[in-house]
């Protein structure tokens, strides 16, 4: 029995021994840079901008375009979405880009760069991008998380009401404008849009404020903001695809290249509208050629969906049309018409889009108020003059806003409440009796966040459009 004791003793000693020092340090990551040890927060900027570009110009705008009659879904997924079948899976990437790709990174970037001499510049730029991204989410989804997002210790942020989100973003943009005003205007090579130009970023911030006031129908505030907004194409927030590989192309070109046959322009309501919209002062032939993309073969596209074609996130045209609409609504039709004519002159000058076919007519003569008076060339049905003018402004927003969500936004803003001036395309589904009003909250948020409300579906108005 003595032996047993020895043996058991030996095993006891053995079992308590195992060497941690042999394995120490091996698990330090040799492949990725640790976030504890990182000085150059500015390297996050490009990622924030790319995530925002994807959201403002990608899947969401294509869906919005199909639902507002600008394009047609012709096969498989896009055909199904076109006919108003949207599942929560479709919006996961967009939702993640906004919150993880933009908001989280923007806040981290502000924290990492707070001691940098360019702190105010980085802060201002990142706030504009955050407002753009989350603003689009609130616009398209309605109620959305904001007040508790990207905060240590809060795993499941609550959803704020749509109006609360817009109010917070207006404040954020005021902060951005203040930061940009206080900053020295130095070059930031990481900034893909403006290389750090604070003056241009501030203009964008004002137009973005105006855009959100339009959503909330605060037209006077929209007017005031737009007055300080983008005043030239060089100040517009634009994505210029480097076109050097498979991951830096025009987003619509890229999507058509991957999913030929899913999506088309031909036969859309916009296609027909551009043909029928002409009058003695207007000929849209050149713009139609520019817009008409080939959804089967990406390489055939030379116009709006060409591989290297720049894409506008927030444009000079939008700012002019906000001024035109809000001035007219404020009872200043002359002023409103002036802005519209400024845009028409800009289009006529050939700066608005490339004229691809020399034979196409390009004509945007200035309108007069008489053109909108009952019986005028833009008011054959004899509605009040100001309404007719607004109708043309909204129609111009619908046409100019192609590949953005302006058309879809106005359809929801005006489609029920101001049908006299709204662009009302036919329904895409024989069974529909209402236009879609919103997107379905991302499946990933619905799954993980107990604070997410039950999604009411795409036909329920968001708070601002109720």
């Amino acid at each position, binding site marked *: 029995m003595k032996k047993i004791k020895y043996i058991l003793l030996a095993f006891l000693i053995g079992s308590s*021994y195992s060497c941690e020092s042999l394995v120490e340090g091996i698990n330090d990551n040799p492949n990725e*840079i640790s976030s504890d040890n990182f000085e150059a927060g500015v390297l996050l900027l490009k990622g924030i901008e790319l995530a925002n570009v994807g959201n403002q110009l990608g899947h969401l705008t294509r869906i919005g375009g199909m639902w507002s009659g600008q394009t047609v879904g012709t096969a498989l997924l896009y055909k199904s979405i076109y006919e108003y079948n949207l599942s929560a899976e479709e919006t996961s990437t967009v939702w993640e880009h906004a919150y*993880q790709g933009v908001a989280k990174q923007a806040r981290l970037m502000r924290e990492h760069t707070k001691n940098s001499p360019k702190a105010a510049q980085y802060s201002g730029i990142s706030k504009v991008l955050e407002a753009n991204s989350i603003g689009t989410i609130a616009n398209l989804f309605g109620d959305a998380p904001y007040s508790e997002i990207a905060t240590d210790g809060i795993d499941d942020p609550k959803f704020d009401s749509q109006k609360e989100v817009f109010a917070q973003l207006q404040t954020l943009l005021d902060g951005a404008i203040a930061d940009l005003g206080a900053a020295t205007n130095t070059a930031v090579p990481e900034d893909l849009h403006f290389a750090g130009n604070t003056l241009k970023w501030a203009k964008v911030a004002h137009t973005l404020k105006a855009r959100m006031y339009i959503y909330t129908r605060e037209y006077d505030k929209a007017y005031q903001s737009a007055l300080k907004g983008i005043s030239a194409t060089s100040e517009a927030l634009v994505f210029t695809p480097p076109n050097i*590989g498979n991951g830096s192309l025009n987003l619509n070109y890229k*999507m058509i290249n991957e*999913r030929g046959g899913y999506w088309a322009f031909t036969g859309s309501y916009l296609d027909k509208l551009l043909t029928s919209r002409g009058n003695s002062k207007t000929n849209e032939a050149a713009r139609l050629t520019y817009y008409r993309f080939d959804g089967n073969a990406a390489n055939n596209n030379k116009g709006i969906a060409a591989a290297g074609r720049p894409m506008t996130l927030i444009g000079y045209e939008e700012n002019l049309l906000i001024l035109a609409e809000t001035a007219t609504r404020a009872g200043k039709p002359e002023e409103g018409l002036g802005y519209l004519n400024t845009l028409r002159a800009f289009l006529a000058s050939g700066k608005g889009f490339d004229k691809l076919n020399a034979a196409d007519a390009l004509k945007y003569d200035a309108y007069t108020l008489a053109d909108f008076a009952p019986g005028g060339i833009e008011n054959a049905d004899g509605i009040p003059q100001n309404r007719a003018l607004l109708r043309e402004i909204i129609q111009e927003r619908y046409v100019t806003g192609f590949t953005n969500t302006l058309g879809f936004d106005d359809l929801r803003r005006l489609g029920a409440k101001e049908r006299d001036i709204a662009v009302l395309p036919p329904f895409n589904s024989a069974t529909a009796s209402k236009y879609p009003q919103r997107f379905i909250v991302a499946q990933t948020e619905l*799954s*993980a966040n107990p604070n997410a409300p039950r999604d009411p579906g795409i036909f329920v108005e968001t708070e601002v459009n109720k």
Partner: protein
Amino acid sequence: MKKIFLLLLCLTLVRAHAQTTIQGKVTDENSEPLPGVSVLAKGTNVGTTTDGTGAYTLTVPQGTTQLVFSFIGYTSLSEDIGNRQQINVSLAQESTQLQEVVVNALGFKTQKDRAGSTSSSVSSTAIKTSGEASILNSLAGKASGVKIVRSNGDPGAGTNIQIRGANTIGGSSQPLIIVDGVPISNDNLYGSGSSRSGGVSQQSRLNDLNPEDVESVQVLKGASAAALWGSRAANGVLVITTKQGKLNQRMKVSYATTYSLDEINRKHPLQTTWGQGTAGRYSPTSANSWGDKISARPGGEDVVTTTGEYFQADNGDKIYPIRTKNSQEVFVDQNFNDVFQKGNFLDHNLTISGGSGKTTNYFSLGYLGQEGIVKNSTYDRLTVRFNNQTFFNNYVNLTTKANYIYTNANRVQQNSNTAGLYLGLLRTPPDFENASYKGTYFNNAGVAFPNRQRSYRRYLGNNINPVYNNPLWTTDEQKGTTTVNRFNANTNLNINPISWLQLDLRGGVDTYVDKRVYFSPIGSASFVNGRLDNEDFTNTEINLDAIARLDFPNLIPDKVGLNATVGYNINDRNRKVLYAATSNFLVNSQLQTFTNGIAPFEVSNNTNHIRSNRLYSILSFDFLNQVFLNLSGTQEAASTIQGTYFYPSMDLAWQFTDLPNVKGNILSFGKLRLAYGQVGVQPSAYRFGTTYETFTYSTYDDALDINEFGGGFRLNDDQGNPNLKPEIKTEFEIGTDLRFFKDRLTLGATYYQNEIRDILLAVNQSPSSGFLSKYANAGRMENKGLEVDLSYQLLRNNDYGLDLYGNYNNNRNKVLDLAGVDRVDLTNQSITSNAIVGQPLGILFGSRAARNPDGSLVLDENGFPKLDPQQGIIGNPNPDWRGGFGIRGFFKKVNFNVLFETYQGGDFAERTRFVLNSFGTYTDTEDEVTLTKDLKNAAGKIFPAGSVVRGNIGNYGGGDVLLDEQWYTTLGGGLGGSAINEFSINDGSWTRLREVSLGYSISGEKFRKATKLSSIDLSFSGRNLVLWTKIKGIDPEVNQSGVDNGFGIEYFTNPSTRSWVFSMKINY
């Protein structure tokens, strides 16, 4: 370690003093010497083992009356000493049935009847007669509770093994592989050049092993048997022993050759009635086959325009723009035969074995050359093995085993992938001929564009982008090669200084370099400018063990015996990956060189280094030779885990038939088993901290790659976690091994229950929190089930025998907790395989039809289902039960085996069929119906009674409706979250004739004299010859994501095979 040796040294000092010396020799029944036989003075712990010539010398204490000779596999013998000083004995071999030998997790042989945990063994004969080219596939259906499925029929494709259900959610579910006591790699790596959802099949590294070299495979299923391997053992252990020569054996030479003929075992049925187009109209550029009725065409040549653009195919065909489609030709079979063939492999094996008095040798040379059923899919394997054991003297012997492997394979693209074979082939309209797939396009101005791909969407090749590859382009122009050079060697120094102590020093290295190339020439789908990926994996696993085994068979004489093992292990795994790619070629060339590439190049490198060290001990007691108790403990520290962890295990076996009056004519042997153990799963490396990462953003196939914008970072969307622990699986099992009717009926039954805690998961975070996931010990899951193995000797004598055998398992898995997240997906794409709380792992989730509270479908005003805006559970791929049953027998020199395997009750997502219904190429959409009453289609259009419409009549509970193009191209077919993917789920139960074999051996004295050969063995085997299943177009055993925890889904996955295998072995 020093401490242990000191203790062992102390122990030797308390040894008793010796008195008499006895010598002798131990032989077997054929008078061949038996080395390694234990010789023990009865009633003491004094003993020795025989040397290479079977000789021994033992000095026994005074008063010893008997010597006990024992050796595993032989009947023990007690011999009275009397006055003899020379005692020679001969040991008789035990019937293998009675005293089955099992190899434990450390590679040592033990007796199965003494084990308290379950294991299943598969012998070398069973492996070879299966007719499989790879070791893993040959095990299918042979052991209860062990699921073995190959991911598809591609040559060299990986094999998924799962023991007793899923034991982890995010980690690897593959068992640890121990070959000759040393772990080796069974990696199944996808890397950066290919993905699980779309790409090529990847290999399981264990299939590098030549099945000819394998002596036996032992499957250790329970936690208690595997606990010695701590955090690597949760998925069970496969213990493989390779062949060795025998001492004093003449040189034996054998040459074996095997030829296998393989063919597709299930084909997707495609329609041949309707042409390319939409809405009943022909269009030569349409994606779909919802065009005109082919038989309604006038026939004859198409009317073409010969004045402008055209395509000059390399095969001589000239293709002009079609003005009127007249031809009634269909090409479904021809298109299939253009890319499929009868596959085959030829396997040669030369082995030489034998031994002298002090050494044994085994040498083998194997070469396997395989051509798959898909043209240009190949797999070649060359293996060389040399195993040697040398007995330096009575105390020291050294075993060295070295194995070199070279494999070279070309894999064909599959799955969700515009270059995938099936994707291009099965979407091709029946009236399109794929043969002229490559040539020169001339535009209207006569400008030539050489080396253009021609696909059904681009029938003139007038666009460099084919949308999907022509399948011939996939097989003939694209390459996906992998070349592996692997070397593994291990050596074991066994020292036996005194009879009751054995020391083993063991070292092993397993290293391989896997060089993979993926090449797509200019004009390939997705890569119109070409693409080249090179990916090199260098993997090295080093393993060191020092083991001491102490044997006290008479700790308390005739009452208690003790066998103790203590060991220390260091295991180090290091993998480095270098990856480079370009997707822009300067020149249209077949050269696979980066000098033909243009920036930006994708370049990345990656290191994965994990080290662990363990101290383990086992105490095995036997009481009265009928109760056996094993206790073991393992203390482990690993680089990926904070702190050290202890893994205990216990098992108990009681041979209750040793009680008086229990054994009788009916029950000949009975054992009760009880086992408990804890094992773990290691976290993956480098998950302690949150890092920065590079990324690509895509909202829907519109990727923006940060590397093309001059580079940058983002904070990782996966949050780090410095407090990682291993996943701990705690298992309890109870079972019995019974033998009846003089051992003719054998029954093993085990009930097991396990719970896995602290499962490591990339837990989904609310995206609005700023992180998408966090790696954490968050999950909890359980498995329980019954395993039964049964065999019955129906007939048995020297000339003939007939056995029935079978196995059964009904594993029930349930995910118990996911830390508040209701779903973790294991695969991506429209239908996913998931972990969902309260459901078994793997549950299928996706878009579904909206339902009323009573479960009925919500219908629109036309009587059709509607899409539920929220996705949900749509199927369970786990079977209710699975089993194998067979019959084997012999008559004189003829032997045969028939094995059926079945899988009952699991769902299967037939996504190919569902998608092809949208494309209009599957037979589901072939029929025309004559309406007997007015019916509405999904768009609400009314088709009056009497109309003849292409489609089917369906009823979703609101009366008959017309399922036509409108339905199949929107909610009722297709892909993405906006079709009702629920409708692609079907019952995936199957039963198959897994294996049939017939063998004949030519041997005997006359034959030997005539030929100087000892025998020639001939055999024929059939694999997968018959498959019974409701799944129409593919073997439901395939898995889109390959060797993966997610399963039950196929999407244009390459098909499986059935094989006829002939082999001949000449033994000299």
